[in-house]
């Protein structure tokens, strides 16, 4: 992209639009990516339609999460007390840096140099792996998809399907390089078996396991971790030390509420009725050490914002990504944040408005994300509200700002509006190159419409009397 408008519009070379352009250079691949995710979205629809109480479940889940936001103080204290009673050490981290330091300190005390970790978007958000590396500790991601992107030196591109952007031939090549599999073998069955052998060695040798948390129950002090592969369990059950990292918004009040959330989570994520394993950790194994790190990192501040606090209800199912027409065609990495897609686009600006100012614009505001969200987050409304806030804080590019202000002025002045309409139709008809050129971002990859003969106002006046 080398036009003037884009240079004016884009402050960095790595904003969403630029990265999406890069992803779109390979059109067949974009089509494949789009179709794969839509296939998962359809599986979700099928699973949802099989429960006649689906909409009621969403409503109840949303109510429970609203109740959590209103009583988070009480629930966190109850969770801490109950977990401690069961012999779990509870830590609190204000931000990513403190989280990383706490985790490092626990590992350092054991003298362990290599640890296994199951999927945790929180540790991605905090860049834990990179931090531990600087401290001389290697983290082995054990979810197959996460291990693939880790070997490739990339972050996950999707919170549930970390390597959804990788083709099996590329994975075959990657494994051939790192795991010594025969060149040219890209059979998923074979590659999965190779990864099983490779990771089993790490499960057997690692004495410390880090996991994320899907739900933390205030009433019982237990945490629930869901996987299909069994990697979280294999890691934890064979380790002397278990560290579970959890965002403070993952609290739910009562154990029985798990019935609601576990019914929604996997169906929304991949269309499965439930994940293979839904493990409830209430006490450490005899002789095992268990730590829970509660992480704030901007969440308590967001709780004070009536417009944006609802994003804290998220259970990280990824349904909003699978359905999003922009995500499906721009890829997870174009969001340059640990959590991609619509939910990432409303979470990221809360952490750093300047750095993520582009993300709320990576949407058509079609609202599909809000319609599939199992906890009824008003995602597309929040995208719109972020845009307004960003504009007020002058965090949008000059072209967009000038264009929007000009439009606002024209639309609020009747005579000017009528004149602009006439002028626009004349220009599009007789000198189309004035509009259809590379300086107009709306012309990019689009045919401009044929100008109508008359304005709607004129058509209306002519036709209103014909009934």
């Amino acid at each position, binding site marked *: 992209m080398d036009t003037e408008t884009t240079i004016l519009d884009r402050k960095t070379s790595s904003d969403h639009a630029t990265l999406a352009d890069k992803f779109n250079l390979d059109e067949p691949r974009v089509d494949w990516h789009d179709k*794969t995710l839509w296939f998962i979205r359809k599986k979700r629809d099928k699973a949802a339609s099989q429960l006649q109480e689906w909409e009621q479940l969403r409503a109840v889940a949303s109510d429970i999460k609203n109740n959590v936001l*209103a009583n988070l103080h009480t629930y966190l204290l109850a969770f801490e007390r109950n977990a401690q009673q069961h012999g779990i050490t509870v830590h609190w981290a204000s931000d990513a840096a403190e989280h990383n330091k706490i985790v490092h300190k626990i590992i350092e005390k054991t003298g362990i140099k290599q640890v296994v970790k199951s999927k945790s978007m929180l540790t991605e958000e905090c860049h834990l792996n990179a931090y531990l590396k600087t401290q001389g500790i290697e983290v082995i991601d054990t*979810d197959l998809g996460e291990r693939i992107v880790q070997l490739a030196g990339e972050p996950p591109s999707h919170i549930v399907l970390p390597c959804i952007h*990788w083709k099996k031939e590329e994975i075959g090549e990657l494994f051939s390089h790192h795991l010594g599999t025969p060149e040219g073998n890209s059979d998923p069955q074979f590659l999965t078996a190779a990864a099983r052998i490779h990771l089993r060695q790490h499960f057997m040798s690692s004495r410390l396991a880090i996991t994320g948390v899907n739900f933390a129950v205030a009433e019982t002090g237990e945490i629930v971790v869901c996987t*299909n*592969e069994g990697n979280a369990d294999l890691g934890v059950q064979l380790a002397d030390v278990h560290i579970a990292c959890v965002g403070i918004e993952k609290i739910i009040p009562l154990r029985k509420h798990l019935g609601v959330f576990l019914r929604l989570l996997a169906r929304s994520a991949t269309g499965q009725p439930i994940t293979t394993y*839904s493990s409830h950790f*209430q006490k450490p194994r005899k002789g095992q050490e268990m730590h829970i790190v509660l992480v704030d990192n901007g969440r308590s501040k967001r709780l004070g914002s009536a417009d944006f606090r609802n994003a804290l209800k998220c259970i990280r199912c990824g349904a909003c990504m699978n359905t999003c027409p922009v995500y499906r065609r721009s890829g997870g990495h174009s969001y340059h944040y640990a959590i991609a897609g619509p939910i990432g686009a409303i979470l990221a600006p809360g952490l750093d408005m300047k750095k993520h100012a582009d993300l709320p614009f990576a949407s058509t505001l079609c609202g599909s994300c809000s319609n599939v969200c199992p906890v009824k987050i008003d995602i597309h409304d929040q995208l719109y509200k972020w845009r307004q806030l960003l504009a007020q804080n002058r965090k949008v590019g000059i072209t967009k700002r000038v264009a929007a202000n000009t439009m606002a002025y024209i639309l609020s002045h009747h005579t000017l509006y009528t004149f602009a309409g006439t002028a626009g139709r004349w220009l599009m008809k007789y000198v189309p190159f004035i509009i259809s050129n590379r300086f107009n971002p709306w012309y990019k990859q689009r045919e401009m419409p044929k100008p109508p003969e008359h304005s709607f106002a004129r058509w209306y006046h002519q036709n209103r009397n014909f009934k």
Partner: protein
Amino acid sequence: MSSRDHILEVIRKNQPKGLPLQEIAFSDGEPFDKISKFTTVLESIGGTVIPINEWGEVEAYLNQRFSTEKRWVNLVPELRNLAPLADFTEDPHLLENVMVAILPGHFGVAENGAVWITEELMGDRALPFICEHLALIIRAENIFPTLHDAYTHIDKSQYGFGTYIAGPSKTADIEQSLVLGAHGPKSLMLFLITET
């Protein structure tokens, strides 16, 4: 001020006023046959359901499928003849060569094919995950229609560690191709006792 106190203070100040929790009341919907639903769902996610009328059928099935030369671990008292009841005082890493683990489950859930099992039934927490093949046994009358019913039954019991197991370990991370046996068991056999 410690991070803990600071976080809690900001939350107390920022949390909105909210509504009290509502009771969860889901209508049972259309009544359905729990056993056939459980069977259909579990088979659709890669499990094998074997209805049995007597314990001997478990033995016959497993003997036919797995070599007795390999290591079997049994925790079902009624199957003592098949393999002696295992005793666990050792390191969980030593379970790595287990070919078949045979464990009793508490109950099944019809809507999702999951079986609830807690650690006192596992012998060792690692066993259901590290074994090559897993056989679970439940009684047909212990199948609940939904997860809500399951949690009503679990209620406030203490379990240290408990898990729902729904089918064999699996992944579809490579181009959405489903592969059974990701890190855990490659197959899950569910023996469903209908008569004894």
